[in-house]
C-alpha cells in the first residue's frame, strides 16, 4: 500500500531522515516509534505531500508523493502533531467546514465516525478551544476521517493526553480497521506498540528496524534482568562497573541489566551482596518489552 525507497530528508545541516526504506501493507495499523526528533513527523509530512524528500521515492498505492500530490491529497486523512483545528469554531462547525472543503457532508460518512461521535455528541456546540485534550484529539480524528480516506496519517495523536483518553483513542483506531483503512501512527510512547500490527523504530533519522511487536521481542537474543526494590536507581553507579557488554539502564521503578551471557547473573548477585547499600533487592529474569528492543537496536546501530 505504501512503499518507501531510500527516503532522506535534509534540513540545512540536519539530516532528519537517513535513507529510509520499508513497506506498509493495506489495512494494517503501522506504528512509527521513536523519541522526539527522530524523524517521525518529517516522514509523515512527506507521505502527506507536505514536504518533498531530499532523496528517494515514496509511493502511496500507485501514486508518487511528489508527482501525484493532488491525487494523494484526496485519499489521505492527515492529523498534524499540533492541535490544528479552529479553536474559535464549535465542534460541529469544525466538522462541517472540513466536510465541505473535502467535498462531502457529515452525514455521508457518518458510519465511520459513529464510534467517535458518541464521545463528542455532548459537546456539539462547544468551541474547540474549550474541549479537553482527549476530546480535541477525537475531534481532530473525526475531521481527518470525514472524507473517508483510505489512509490515515496520525502524527503523535496520543501525546499530552491522559492515559484513559489514550486507551480510548487507540481503541477507536482498532475499530477503524474493519473499514479497511490503513493507519500510520507516530508515537514516542513505546508501550503503544502493542496497539500496532507492525512497528518501525526510529532514532535520529535512522530506521532501527521494522517488525511486528512480537517479532521484535523474539529477535531479542540477550538475557534481561530486572532489579526491583527501594529506589534501585541508587545502584546505578555500582552496576555501571560491570563489563561493557552489559547494558545497565533505569526503566520506570526498576533497573534493567541486559547481558549476552546468561551466566553473568552470578556476577550481578555477588555485586549486590557486596554493595554498600544494604537493601533487599529482587532480581528476576524478564521478557523484553519494546523499549528494551529499542535500546538493543540502538546499541547495535550506534555502538556504545
Amino acid at each position, binding site marked *: 500500500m505504501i512503499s518507501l525507497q531510500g527516503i532522506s530528508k535534509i534540513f540545512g545541516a540536519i539530516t532528519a531522515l537517513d535513507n529510509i526504506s520499508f513497506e506498509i501493507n493495506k489495512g494494517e495499523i503501522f506504528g512509527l516509534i521513536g523519541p522526539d526528533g527522530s524523524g517521525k513527523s518529517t516522514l509523515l509530512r512527506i507521505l502527506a505531500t507536505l514536504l518533498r524528500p531530499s532523496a528517494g521515492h515514496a509511493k502511496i498505492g500507485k501514486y508518487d508523493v511528489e508527482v501525484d500530490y493532488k491525487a494523494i491529497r484526496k485519499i489521505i486523512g492527515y492529523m498534524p502533531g499540533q492541535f490544528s483545528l479552529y479553536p*474559535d*469554531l464549535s465542534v460541529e462547525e469544525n466538522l462541517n467546514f472540513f466536510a465541505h*472543503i473535502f467535498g462531502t457532508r457529515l452525514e455521508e460518512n457518518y458510519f465511520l465516525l459513529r464510534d467517535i461521535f458518541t464521545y463528542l455528541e455532548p459537546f456539539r456546540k462547544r468551541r474547540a478551544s474549550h474541549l479537553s485534550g482527549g476530546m480535541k484529539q477525537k475531534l481532530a480524528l473525526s475531521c481527518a476521517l470525514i472524507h473517508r480516506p483510505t489512509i490515515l496519517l496520525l502524527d503523535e495523536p496520543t501525546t499530552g493526553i491522559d492515559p484513559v483518553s489514550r486507551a480510548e483513542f487507540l481503541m477507536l483506531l482498532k475499530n477503524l480497521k474493519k473499514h479497511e483503512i490503513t493507519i500510520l501512527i507516530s508515537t514516542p510512547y513505546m508501550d503503544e506498540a502493542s496497539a500496532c500490527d507492525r512497528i518501525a523504530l526510529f532514532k535520529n533519522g535512522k530506521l532501527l528496524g521494522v517488525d511486528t511487536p512480537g517479532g521484535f521481542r523474539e529477535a531479542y537474543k540477550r538475557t534481561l534482568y530486572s532489579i526491583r526494590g527501594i529506589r534501585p536507581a541508587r545502584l546505578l553507579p555500582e552496576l555501571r562497573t560491570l563489563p561493557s557488554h552489559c547494558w545497565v539502564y533505569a526503566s520506570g521503578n526498576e533497573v534493567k541489566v541486559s547481558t549476552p551471557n546468561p551466566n553473568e547473573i552470578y556476577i550481578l548477585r555477588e555485586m549486590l551482596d557486596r554493595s554498600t547499600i544494604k537493601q533487599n533487592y529482587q532480581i528476576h529474569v524478564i521478557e523484553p518489552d519494546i523499549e528494551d528492543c529499542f535500546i538493543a537496536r540502538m546499541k547495535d546501530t550506534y555502538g556504545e
Partner: protein
Amino acid sequence: MIAFIIKEFRHLLRDPRSLLILIGMPLAQILIFGYAIKTDLNESDIAIVRMNNDKLSDLAIQHLDASKGFHVKYIWDHPSQIAEAFRKGEIRLAVVLDNNLESKILQGYPADIQVIGDASDPNTANLLVQHTQGTLRNVYREYLQKNASTPVVQVSARMLFNEENRSVFMFIPGTIVIILMLLSAMMTSISLAREKETGTLELLLVSPLRPHQIILGKVVPYMGLSLINACTILLLSKFLFEMPFRGSLPLLMSETLLFIILALCIGLYISTIARTQQVAMLLSMFALMLPTILLSGFIFPIENMPLGLQYLSALIPARWFVEIIRGIMIRGVGIEILWKETLILAGMVCIFMLLCVKNFKIRLE
C-alpha cells in the same frame, strides 16, 4: 469555497472585541482627525500689530476678537516682537495692519494686511490664515457696503517655518487610505499567518482545495469589511465634516474597491513571506503603514520631497489612490482625467496577484 468564506466570517464574528476594533477604529480615527482640526481653531491666541490708531484698525481688531476662532492676546504698535512670540509659542497667528489702512480704504485703494502663521503646524496655520482673510475682507466690505467683486483689502499670507500651502481636505483621503491599508493588508496577512501558526494551514494544504480557493476564501470577508468601512468614512466626511463631493459616486466606489483589492493582495503577499502573526503584523506596520503615511502625500507634500523620495513615492499605491480620491471628491473629475492613476493601481494588482499565486506554497517548504 463558500464554506471557507462562511468560516472566515465566523472567525470574525466569534471575536467581538476585534470586530469592534475593526469597525470602530475607522470611526474613531476619522472623528479624532476631524475634530482635532476643528477644535484647534477655538479661541486661538493671536497678536495684532497696528501702526495707526484709526477707526478702521479698531474695527478689524474688534471683529477678529469677536470671531469664535480668535482671541486677541497682544496688540502691538511695532512688528518687532512677532518673531519672539512665535518662538515661545505664545501666539499662533499675527496680523499686521497697513499703517495707512483707513486712508487707503476710504480712498478706494486696496489696503495691505499681512497675516503670519506658524506653519510648524501647517494644518492649523492654514486654517487660521484663511479664516483671518475671510473675516477681514468681510469686515470692510460690509463697512463700505460694496459688492463682492471690488478688492477692499489685499491680504498677503506668509507661513513661518514652512512656506508651503496645503489643502485641509487632505486628511479625509489620507484617513481612508490608511484605514483601508491597515484593515485589508494587515488583517489578511495576520489571518493567513495565524493559520500557519496554528497548523490549520497544513490541513488546508492537504485538502483538495486549490491555492486560489484558499486565497479567495481569505480575501472576500475582509473585502466586505473594508467596503463597509470605506462607506462609513465617506458618509462621515460628507455629513459631519462637510467635505465637498463633486464627482461620481459609482466611480469613487469602484476605485475604492480596486484599492481594497490591491491592499488585500499586498496583505496576502506579506503572509506568504511571514511565518508568524507577529512577523506579519510588523511587516505590515513598517513595510506598509509607514511608507503609506509618509510617502503618500497625506502628510508631506510629494512636490517638496527630494527627487529620490519622489520616485520612491511612485511605488506607493496610496499615493495614486489619494490623487484619485482628491480628484473625484474635490475636483470632481472623472475617469478621463484619472485613467493614469487607475491604470497604475490595476497594474499593481496584477503584479501582486501573480506574486501571491506564485509564492503561495502548495507544500510546507
